[in-house]
């Protein structure tokens, strides 16, 4: 499901042409990304090593970084940490490493999103749009709309098909957190910390029960959720 605002965003991107830095040691991968991304209106800069990547990031201040974890010179997670010491814009990890541990670790270390290679370019573009939108526009709009669902952050209300949905306060906090970060994956630990104030991963049982409850209330078919999506072993993503 695409968000209405995202489509508008896309049009805006075409005009401004954000700069994306690609840090990947595989020529073929850089070429594919360069072709795809410039065809979608982005400006591209490329780096084949971690060192070069860090240099370019500080020189050009890109709007987004696409980072491969398996670079020849510096460990991917180290680059991520070193970038995050000063770099505030989104970093999307694009790696062949697809274990849940790696993904969670990258997200917990400041990555904005994670895509495993091989990936669908359509999906990559969507993730890039979401990441840039979240970094550029501070979300001041209290009314978030997702198809037939409207979430009013001011009035603590969720409205589906014009009718107010009954939600407990925890359910609403959880739904609001996910909706404010629509399109982004949030790890279990992050959600637990934000909503319940603790980060024990053992508590994911509660989280899942709440998710199941919210789905019953907001989804058209709760067994085939279209809004509140599971990222297995990692967390949840809302809206895309």
């Amino acid at each position, binding site marked *: 499901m695409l968000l209405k605002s995202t489509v508008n965003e896309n049009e805006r991107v075409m005009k401004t042409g954000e700069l994306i830095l690609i840090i990947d040691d595989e020529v073929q991968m850089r070429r594919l990304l360069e072709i795809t991304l410039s065809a979608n209106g982005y400006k591209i800069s490329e780096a084949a090593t971690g060192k070069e990547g860090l240099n370019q990031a500080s020189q050009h201040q890109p709007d987004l970084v696409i980072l491969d974890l398996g670079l020849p010179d510096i460990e991917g997670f180290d680059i991520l940490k070193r970038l995050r010491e000063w770099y505030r814009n989104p970093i999307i990890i694009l790696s062949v490493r697809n274990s849940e541990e790696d993904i969670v670790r990258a997200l917990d270390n400041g990555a904005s999103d994670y895509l495993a290679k091989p990936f669908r370019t359509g999906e990559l573009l969507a993730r890039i749009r979401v990441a840039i939108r979240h970094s550029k526009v501070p979300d001041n709009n209290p009314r978030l709309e997702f198809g037939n669902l409207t979430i009013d952050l001011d009035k603590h209300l969720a409205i589906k098909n014009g009718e107010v949905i009954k939600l407990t306060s925890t359910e609403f906090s959880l739904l609001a957190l996910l909706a404010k970060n629509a399109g982004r994956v949030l790890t279990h630990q992050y959600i637990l910390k934000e909503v319940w104030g603790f980060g024990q991963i053992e508590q994911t*049982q509660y989280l899942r*029960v709440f998710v199941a409850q919210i789905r019953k209330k907001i989804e058209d078919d709760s*067994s085939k959720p279209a809004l509140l999506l*599971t990222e*297995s072993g990692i967390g949840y993503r809302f809206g895309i």
Partner: protein
Amino acid sequence: MKKLLTEGTDRTAIGHYLIAVATVIAVSAACYLARNLIGYHVVSLTLLLVVSLLAVFLDTIPLLVASTLSALIWDFFFIPPHFTLHIGSTEDLLMLAMFFIVALLNGILTSRIRRQELRARQREERTDALYQLTKELLVANGIEETVSVAEKYLGQYFKIGSVAIVTGEDRELQVCPADFSGFTPESKNLQIARWVLQNQVKAGRFTDNFSDAELTFYPAEGGEKVIGVICFLNPVRTAPLEEQFLEACIALISGKIERELLSLVAKDAFILAESDKLYKTLFNSISHELRIPVAAIIGATDTLLSERYPETTRKKLYREMSKASVRLNRLIDNLLNMSRLESGHLTPHPDWCDVHDLVNKVTGSLEQELGLFSFVTVIPDDMPLVSIDFGLTEQVIHNLVLNASQYAPEGTEITLSLRYDKPGKLIISVADQGRGFTEKELNNLFHKFYRGETAVSGGTGLGLSIVRGFVEAQGGSVHATNGERGGALITVELPVNASEINSE
């Protein structure tokens, strides 16, 4: 019967003298009481009979005592004049001499026969022992059992304590049993064993070499070279004849050790051949599986680059390339999963899971394949959260559903059911309406590289073996049968925890 052959000679010798004297005195006394009824000549015959009978039981010297004693008694008490050794008539003197000679001959001949008999019995016992040893060695499996058989028999016959067998090359000696008390690494005993291996002579206690050791070492000869050393703890000195027997036993045990070592070599060779076969199968099936999609991609791109084709053709080619890539990616996933399994480092990470998520993930990735079928999911309304490894279980369901979609005819129904069985069991089953399994397929289904008898082209035969691997890694089991209304039915059982939290 199986006593040491020389055991207890002292005690039986005294017994023999007592029996000899007592029997002679008793019979003489009886004859004395009856002297008025029988003549003294009859008494001599009676005593002669007694001595002959005693010869059957007694050793030579007690028998001589019995002969002499009975001659004296006859002379003293029975030959007139009584109560004196003096013999009146020449006839009686001759009688006494003959009595004595007959008794002696009788005794000597009998005991010679008995000695021969004893020797025959010893021979028979040894033959029997060798036969038993051969028989038990034949069934013994491995060096360890050989050691215990050797210990049992040699212990019985030679009062030998424990037995150890040392095998291997110069620097890498293996002692069996491994915890044998006499061998610590680089102990003197190990050095002697090494010396015996090199010099091919026996050594240790009661031998000419290293006679101060507490063990005796015999070289185990196999064919032309020494293949090991047989060591005895608490050996006893053996008579030359017994030494021969012991060496025969050692030859037998050596033969067994040789066979065991050879079978180890053969086993290694077999494993090598098997893995070679496996490698070839893997190579053939995977090189095929890799080449076909790559060929499709190369062919399609070549056509596309020539730019002579209408948009509809180009679209079709793009679609083919996309399909080929998905197929390649699937193969790589399978290979990686297989190698995860084979490496033995697969540790499941169970976490709470809503099984709907599992199903959605699988149906999402198999959207294209399932589009050709009527796909039904059955999950009870009261399904609890279960604690499972999401990734592994997803792959299991993915492979099962993909398999069904490859074998069942298009347009038929594929049913995926999940349910929770108290206590602690997640049951996943995938049923299709294809032709089901043949007997042969049911036996081989989960074997690596096995392809069904009507397998569609493509596929490596890895899918179901990965299913089994991932299920077993989580402590579960998987069964294949034919459904009640035909069609294949594969059922997976996983031990799980179910959530007791109720959010209502």
